[in-house]
């Protein structure tokens, strides 16, 4: 089995940080490996552009039949945002990388 590729940003994911992360996300969206893990465990803040970038990535993966796992431990900034904005069920969310690869 091919190991999933992991993207694990840290700290505050605001407009500026999302711009910096964009090439990596673009590469991931254009690649052909089957499984990407977006690990948001160490993200302390996500703004609307960050959520938009993750939605965009999920949209591309859906269209390609590839799978995207989002790591958002309970109580983390990412978990709270996904819950509050009503989009949690549109993603495969796991509490840890181990859980995502089990």
């Amino acid at each position, binding site marked *: 089995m091919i190991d999933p590729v992991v993207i694990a940003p840290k700290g505050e994911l605001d*407009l500026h940080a999302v711009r910096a992360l964009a090439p990596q996300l673009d590469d991931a969206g254009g690649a052909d490996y089957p499984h990407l893990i977006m690990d948001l465990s160490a993200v302390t803040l996500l*703004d*609307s*552009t960050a*959520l*938009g*970038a993750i*939605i*965009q990535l*999920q*949209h591309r993966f*859906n269209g390609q039949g590839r799978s995207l796992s989002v790591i958002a431990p309970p109580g983390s900034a990412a978990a709270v945002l996904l*819950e*509050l*904005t*009503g*989009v949690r*069920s*549109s993603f495969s969310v796991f509490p840890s990388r181990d859980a995502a690869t089990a």
Partner: protein
Amino acid sequence: MIDELLRRTHLCAPSDLAAVIADPPRRIGARSVVLYLIDYEQQSLVPLPGSGRGDLAPLSVAGTIAGRAFSTTSVLRSSGSEGIGQRLWLPLLDGTERLGAIEMTFDAPVSERTVMVCERYAHLAAMLIATKTAYGDVFEVARRRAPMTIASELLWQLAPPLLFATDRLVIAGMLEPCYDNGGDALDYAVNAGVLHVGVFDAMGHGLAAAGVAAFALSAYRHSRRRGCGLLETYAAMDDAVGAQFPDARYVTAVFAQLDLESGRLTWISAGHPPPLVIRHGRLARTLSAPPAAPLGIPLQTPAPVVAEESLEPGDLLLLYTDGLTEARHPDGQMFTVAGVGEFIEREAAAGLVAPETLRRLRNAIVDRQAGHLNDDATAVLLEWRRGSEVDLLPQTAE
């Protein structure tokens, strides 16, 4: 005097209106009449060109008699220059919307009867300003004390008047930063005993975000005017944003209907912070409901659910965007939902009406010395059956 003004306004261009309004009061002894409009930041009253002398400076709302007439919607008197005669300061109210203030200077003391006539005259003047503003830029330009971005230009064009009051209801709005708002919008309408109200926040900032917000707002109005319910309105906005912006751009929104007779409130939160209720003047709590997904995202999402709550007479309801609660104090601390709730509780307990509470909230979060905004901050504060609508009518005070 009122007849003469009405007759002369038929062919009056907006830029001539101030001079036309200043003329008829000479017949009742007014030596000069100056119209002041409130600026976008609601901090200064700006004299209109064509009224009074040409060298008048803006007056601060804080600490001036003009400002007090404006912020308390009261008719106030002060003595004329060199102690001769009297000045009247009257609020310029289009209905209840606070456009500014009028200063009328008389050579002799003014009778109560004259004060009453001047109050009606100021009301007519305000309605004429509101009507004529569609035909020229003079009032709009006067209200601007700083350059405005194109995004803000677009969003202000879409914004309804930021204050309305009717039987059982006062509703006030705030859109900040007023010269550089990038993607927030608000709207409301009172139709046959039902208030329709919504707050919208497009992802990102700047002109692109303002465009997305404009699509969502237009779809909202279109649905409302077709008589659609909340679920249909959600679907229409979701389609409008999703079809025009097939990438992941989206809008979060909370939009509600309030039955003004019964207080029944129904709403949908599309990925948006929940509304806040301030009850009995102190207890702030969020109106939690299962959130629906933001509008226009290209993913499979669960069907939205309409939430319901009964307001109690005297309740205040706040709809807002996260830029408000995430605004920073000077020490870098976030305002937070609790902080905003406490602020509104405090101002309401002091007896302030909704527009004045929002004006002070705005000053607290936007004042350059006091704090700064990282994001657009939008709020709608409404008061249901609080009896406060009469406080927005002109008061005669000493």
